[in-house]
Structures are given as structure tokens and as C-alpha cells.
């Protein structure tokens, strides 16, 4: 098996690389982690050249134009167009090169905004997504449409996973365009160095299920090797492990031993109040999978950021 990982230097890609290197690969498995230096995936020819060069038998497709709430709010059109181009190019090149399996990466943020909870895999297309990131959301939903299309027209078994909020080392810690957890870590780091208070954007009330990137990586490798459905699978901690942004901020404060005040800027948007996802499909397949405890995962991530501050993406 020769596995091409697109988006190989990102949050999830680096975690997969870590797991592959530390926990070993199966016999004869080769892994190549592609980055934007290897190809411009918005360009069909560049994508095709990448597949020509490496001739993968399997693909984990992580590359995407990604942003947190505020990044998306500013440019929904761009997020839609770039991600549609990337996804169509990768899937078509995979098909042309007879790739056996492509596992793409969706997100719980793409689900319908008006919905009942918990959300599950059958509900992806049941209504418009949240207005803040509809461009990104629709482009990701179309990955599921493409997977069904490649299956229906050509008999391919391409599929996708749906993680909840991912965090970990090698994230994008930029406060403007990154996601909430890396944003909180970077802010506490700054506040500590400036001797100032730490301000959380929004009310702190929205709720999220967070999944450690290294746990997600273990699960994605399992999906690549064993999951044969075309329909997506949610990869997440359970509903009861959902926490508020305030609780997440407090966990970061504790991990970084921060002593100054924690404040909330309620002028900033909260985004969706909740996106609670149901992980029972995962539990049907893997009843015994153990997630890294949240405070352990946060500590590892904070320690990584402090040790790698100069090279971290921010």
C-alpha cells in the first residue's frame, strides 16, 4: 500500500505522520506526506503531476483552505471556490490513477444549522449550513456528493470522515484565522509574556466536542485500512464530553499556569451555539477505542507551542 497524504504538513497530517512513525506501519506500507510545496491542488495539472510522480494506491485527503470563524466570515466565496477546485482535482486524479481508496476529511461545522441534536452521519444535507461559513461547508458537502458519484458511475469506494473540533501540535495558532483552541493557547502565551489579562472572544457559552489530533490520526488510519462504506463516519468523543468555550479556556489557563484575569469580549461573534455530534457509528465499529484525556492532550499541545513558538504557524 502506498499512501499519499495531501495537506501533510497541517494539523491532522502531522498527527498522522507522528502516529505512523511512532506506532509503526504495516508491512510494505509507504507513506508520503505532500504539502503545498509539492503541488498546487487548485490546479488540475499540478495535482495530476503529483499523482503521476508518486503513483499512490491510497489517499488520505486533508488539504483544504481552512479558517476559523472570523476567517470564513470574510470570504465565503473564496473558501467555496478553492475547496471545490482542490477536492475535484484530487478525486479525479485519484480515479484516473486507479487509486483504491480516498479518505477525505469533512467537519461537523458543515451540518445544517437548524437541526435536532445530536447530529449524525445521515443529516449532512438536511438543510443550509450556518451562514458564517457556508462557502466552506457546501464545498465539503460536495465531497460526499462526489464520493457517491464516483461510486455510482465508476464503482469506486471513496469515503470521508467527519471530525469535530480538532486541536494539537502543528496547528495554525494565528488568532485571526485559526480555530478556537489554538487561538486560546496563543492568547494565554501572549498574556503571560505581557503580564496582561486574557480575553476570550465571545461569551464563552458555545459548546464543542474537541478531538486530539493524534487520536483523530489513529482513527483515520483505521478508516483507511478497514472502513468500506461510501457514507461518511463521524470521528469524535462522545456527547457527554462536550464542553463550553469557557471550560476550554480554563483548561488552557491551568495547563499554562496562567494567573491573571480571564475576561470575555461579548462584542465578538460566538459562531454556532453547539454542533453536538453522535459517535455511535464509530462506537459500533470500535467499542474499545480510548481517547487521550482532554487535560493531558491540552497540556501536550501547550507544551509543544511553548517549545516551538518560533516555528509555529501564527
Amino acid at each position, binding site marked *: 500500500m502506498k499512501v499519499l497524504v495531501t495537506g501533510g504538513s497541517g494539523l491532522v497530517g502531522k498527527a498522522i505522520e507522528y502516529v505512523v512513525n511512532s506506532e509503526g506501519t504495516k508491512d510494505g506500507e509507504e507513506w508520503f506526506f505532500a504539502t503545498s510545496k509539492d503541488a498546487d491542488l487548485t490546479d488540475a495539472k499540478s495535482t495530476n503531476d503529483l499523482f503521476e510522480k508518486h503513483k499512490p494506491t491510497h489517499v488520505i485527503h486533508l488539504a483544504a483552505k481552512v479558517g476559523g470563524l472570523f476567517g470564513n466570515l470574510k*470570504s*465565503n*466565496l*473564496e473558501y*467555496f*471556490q478553492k475547496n*471545490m477546485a482542490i477536492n*475535484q482535482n484530487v478525486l*479525479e486524479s485519484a480515479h484516473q490513477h486507479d487509486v483504491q481508496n480516498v479518505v477525505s476529511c469533512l467537519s461537523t461545522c458543515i451540518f445544517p444549522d437548524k437541526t435536532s441534536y445530536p447530529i449524525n452521519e445521515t443529516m449532512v*444535507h*438536511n*438543510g*443550509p449550513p450556518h451562514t458564517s461559513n*457556508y*462557502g466552506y461547508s*457546501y464545498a465539503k458537502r*460536495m465531497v460526499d*456528493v*462526489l464520493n*457517491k*458519484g*464516483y461510486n*455510482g*458511475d*465508476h464503482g469506486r469506494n471513496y469515503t470521508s470522515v467527519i471530525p469535530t473540533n480538532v486541536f494539537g501540535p502543528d496547528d495554525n495558532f494565528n488568532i485571526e484565522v485559526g480555530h478556537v483552541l489554538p487561538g486560546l493557547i496563543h492568547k494565554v502565551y501572549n498574556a503571560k509574556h505581557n503580564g496582561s489579562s486574557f480575553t476570550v472572544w465571545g461569551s464563552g457559552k458555545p459548546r464543542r466536542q474537541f478531538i486530539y489530533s493524534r487520536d483523530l490520526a489513529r482513527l483515520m488510519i483505521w478508516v483507511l485500512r478497514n472502513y468500506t462504506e461510501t457514507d461518511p463516519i463521524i470521528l469524535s468523543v462522545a456527547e457527554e464530553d462536550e464542553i463550553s468555550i469557557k471550560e476550554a479556556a480554563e483548561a488552557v489557563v491551568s495547563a499554562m499556569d496562567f494567573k491573571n484575569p480571564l475576561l470575555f469580549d461579548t462584542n465578538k461573534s460566538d459562531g454556532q451555539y453547539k454542533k453536538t455530534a453522535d459517535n455511535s457509528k464509530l462506537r459500533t465499529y470500535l467499542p474499545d477505542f480510548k481517547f487521550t484525556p482532554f487535560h493531558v492532550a491540552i497540556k501536550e499541545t501547550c507544551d509543544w507551542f511553548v517549545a516551538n513558538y518560533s516555528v509555529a504557524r501564527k
Partner: protein
Amino acid sequence: MEGSKKRILVTGGSGLVGTGIRAAVEMDPRDDEEYFYLSSKDADLTDRQATLEAFKKIAPTHVIHLAAKVGGLYGNMRGNLHFFRINMAINDNVLSIAQELGVKKVVSCLSTCIFPDKTTYPIDETMIHNGAPHTSNYGYSYAKRMIDVLNTGFNQHYKTQFTAVVPTNVFGPADNFNLEEGHVLPGLVHKVYTCKKNNTPLMVWGTGKARRQFIYSKDLGRLFIWVLRSYEETQPIILSVGEEDEISIKEAAELVAKGFDFEGGFEYDLTRSDGQYKKTASNAKLRRYLPDFKFTPIGQAIRETCEWFTANHETART
């Protein structure tokens, strides 16, 4: 661009709806409007460079975007991925190039067949994204839905006025009358023409019970030009006869038979799929804007279509 004359580029200009628009423009021409009808001979719209060149040559101020890879029920069922990819490419090229060239208004064409399969009736403009479309043509449907997403995106980012219309089943002269690839009404027209010539009974595919609202291409053409001139919302607008004018495929077949003065019998091939049972759309939004618009009576519209086919069957798309 000199003066305030509108240069209106119509993609898919030689098709069913393009022909209807041409007829409507001839009936109601304006001094400040010039129309340019593009067809596949002029450019392959899945090719970005070709599309850019064709658009630059015309230098439009407005676009009516009709071009699409289109098929009836059976065409779609066989190639959903293909219908998705081709239509996504066409729509992305047309909208982004229009914006690049400074076009302020693009009116694209959706369809009631793209609405959610599991739904309440009548369907209205707010419901487009409320669930998965019918499995028979999900590729085409999602590609069309993404036009609405692109319209919202372009308008937010560039302050353009991109919008879309949602017709129900269109029919009329210059349609695709091919039995395998075309839609139900032109299929019936083609079949009755042949059955009359050969003195055989008419074979209707399916049970005849499925129900549709049909809109004559000449009426759609008149409404399309009104949208181009006067409709300013981003949200699409359904262009259709009222709910009460929905008819069964059997009734449609009977009207086509009358259109040809065909007296032979009907048979029903139950091995063929009916497609969706109904797609009843509300035209309340249209009626709020145009309470007095008069649709051509369907018997007359079908008769005109049958007469066109008789006169043009050598050159018609079959």
C-alpha cells in the same frame, strides 16, 4: 462600453429556453437592449480559456445563463457524477468570468427537479437546500443548487446582482425531442407524431400518474426578460403556472394527441420509471410581483409545439 445600451449575453442561446427568450424579445424589443446568443459552436463552456475569449468578444453588461448539461430522467440516472462535474465547471466558468469582466447581473436557470425529495408541498423558493434531492439526478441537482451558493458568495464579496430563476417543466419549439435523453413532453410529441404516421398506439413510459406543472417556453421567455430587467433579489424566483394547473402525464399525453388530432389508443409501459410522483411548486412569489401575467393556455401551447415539430421534424433534435 459606450452609452447605456445593455449588451445581454445568453449562454445556451440555441436551446429550448434560449429560443423562447428570442421569441419574447422579438415581441417586446427595447432600444437600450442588444442580445447575443451563444451556443456550443461558439465556445465549450467547460473550458475556461474558451469561455473567457467568447465573453471578451461580446463584452456583455448582463448575462442570461442557460447553458447546461441537461437530460431527462433516464439520461441522469446513468451518469450522476458526469452531470455534476460538467455543470459545476460550466457554472463556475460563466459566473467567475462574468464577474471578472465587470458584468453586474447574471440570471441563471435552476429547476424544480433540484428541490429536496422528501418535502411538503407546494415547494417554494426558501426550500431549495432543505434536504437531499431525488436520487435519480442528484448530480445535476447539486450542481444547480451550487449556483445559488455562488450567487450569494459573489453578491456578498463583489456587490454584484447575480440571481436565478426556477422554472417547472419547460416545453416548446426547438426542444430536445430525443426519446432517451429528452424530457417527457417533447418525448410524447415525438412519439405521437411517429404513432400517427405508422398508425400504432401510443406507448407512454411509466404509469401516467406522475404530476407536473408545465410552462411554455414562450411564457418562460417573457418572464425571464422581466427578471433580467426588474427582479433584484439574490434569492431565486419560481417561474411557473399555478398549483391548480398541475396535470398528470396521462392528461399531458391526451393534450399532445389532440395537438396532432391523433385518434389511436394509449398503452402504458410499467417497466419504465415514473421519476418523482410530483414536484408541485408555489408561484406565489411570482404572483406578488406580476399578478396580471397571463400564461398561454396549455392546449394551445401544446398544439403550437406539435405544429412546430411537424413543420421542422427533419431538423429538430431527435
